[in-house]
């Protein structure tokens, strides 16, 4: 299971820049970013280093940030790769709320992020279908403590 940073944003000019600047100033690197928007507001989803620390940084900077559990799948970089994954989920009756993907420069695979209604069962279904889930530590530096703690203990 992978922790994704979710941030609620009003549709106002410069707000996304402020968000990314806050993360950048805290030395947090983003691996992927996806913006879902409506005419009234947007939701920004981020895979980044130390997601707990990132949520803490953003809350302190006046953003509404929370962590969302998503599943990350290593999809072979070939035609039909993603379709195999979605079909496996579909046949098991698992609904995908949203999905986005990014490419790992070091690997010959794309990483697909899925938000599903039942992540635990989804992980099992995919494993049974022989589809490789990506581990959190392959994508970012997992942390379960806020940044301040990490700094204090010198990690």
């Amino acid at each position, binding site marked *: 299971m992978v922790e*994704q940073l*979710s*941030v*609620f*944003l*009003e549709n106002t000019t410069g707000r996304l820049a402020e968000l990314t600047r806050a993360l950048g100033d805290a030395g947090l690197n983003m691996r992927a970013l996806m913006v*879902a928007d*409506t005419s*009234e*507001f947007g*939701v920004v*989803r981020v895979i980044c280093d130390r997601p707990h620390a990132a949520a803490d940084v953003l809350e302190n900077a*006046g*953003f*509404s940030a*929370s962590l*969302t559990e998503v599943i990350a799948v290593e999809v072979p970089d070939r035609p039909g790769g993603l379709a195999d994954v979605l079909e496996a989920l579909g046949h098991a009756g698992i609904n995908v*709320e949203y999905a986005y993907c990014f490419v790992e420069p070091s690997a010959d695979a794309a990483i697909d992020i899925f*938000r599903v209604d039942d992540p635990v069962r989804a992980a099992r279904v995919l494993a049974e279908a022989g589809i490789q889930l990506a581990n959190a530590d392959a994508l970012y530096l997992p942390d379960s403590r806020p940044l301040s703690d990490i700094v204090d203990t010198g990690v």
Partner: protein
Amino acid sequence: MFQPDYEAMSRKDLEALQRERLQDTLDRVYHRVRPYRDKFDEAGFRPEMVHSPEDLHKAPFTVKDDLRAAYPYGMFASPMREVVRLHASSGTTGQVTVVGYTRADIERWSDLAARAIVAAGGTPDDVVQVAYGYGLFTGGLGLHYGCERLGAAVVPISGGNTHRQVQVMRDFQVTGLACTPSYALLIGETALEMGMDVREFPVRFGVLGAEPWSDNMRTQVEQILGITALDIYGLSEVMGPGVAFECECKNGLHVNEDHFIVEIVDPDTLEPLPDGESGEVVITTITKEAAPLVRYRTRDISRIVPGTCPCGRTSRRIERIGGRTDDMIIVRGVNVFPRQIEQVLVGIVGVAPHYQVVLTKRGAMDHAEVHVEIGPEVPFDEVKALENLRRTVAAEIASALAVSIDVKLVEPKSIQRSEGKARRVIDLRSEGGVQ
């Protein structure tokens, strides 16, 4: 003039008439309306302490809460067998206040509305489109009866369906229009979108009211419709449209002083202010039978326009209403108090009771948008959940306020907190003007 005997009567005669009618009204409410008897007794006030309108300041005020406490009929001075009509007005807590009319009340109201139509240039030959809402709101039926009293042909189209308004205005050869100023503007703009120019229609005059408007707005209405646009003032608690009206001199609204006594008081000290000074409009009805009011605080801000009017009417004039002493706003003719919105929000999980109402102009119409902070417990990763939340808030507000207002979800803590009185209404209507 529709009733020159009254509209142009000498000040001396008018004041004598006012004295007599005021005395009757005070006696009537003291003997027939329990809340008034209690209020007068409590204040140590007796009707016989008033010998002329100048003595009226000795009487206690009536406020909206008095009417609300007496809901629905506790303030009526006539038995229901004499009441022939009921109207209602919205209140701060969703609680409406009810106003009743005897047959004679309706007759007088019709006369007063007819005075306003005549002052705007209306005659029995005219065809008047009444595009005020018909129903519990007094606008539609008030002007309707005024037109019929005058003998003009009334087109009771009510509000809404603007394309049809334009079509009817052209096809029926309408010569007069009665509606809110913003709706008049919308009709003009809609006609242009439909490829028609209302200036080429026979329509000559507008009797416009039920919302505050400016001279700037008047100019726009007059230009786009090619009409003379005059203001009419009234409030349902007091009667409805026709308490005061503008004449073609466009310099203040003539108060129908043979039926209403208007005072201007300092909204803080409640002391009467001399003519010319701005304050809260306080109205005493002196001919109403079913629902008389003594010193009713309207919360509307105006002043007496000094001097006499060249039109020949002898009644004093009040300036166009310049604002409110409370935070009430009017959205498409419906009274909205920010507190009502607050009450809705505290009942909804997922939003904070921090909000602002932002008023702008969208074309001709006033546009209201409520900005609401989302609460920390909202699963804001899901757009669907946020959309549902937004729809819930909008639906609850529409249900509680009887008018739909757009809702915008904003980030927590993004609405400026105030040290003192929270600034709940941001009015950008005059800044942006009409787009």
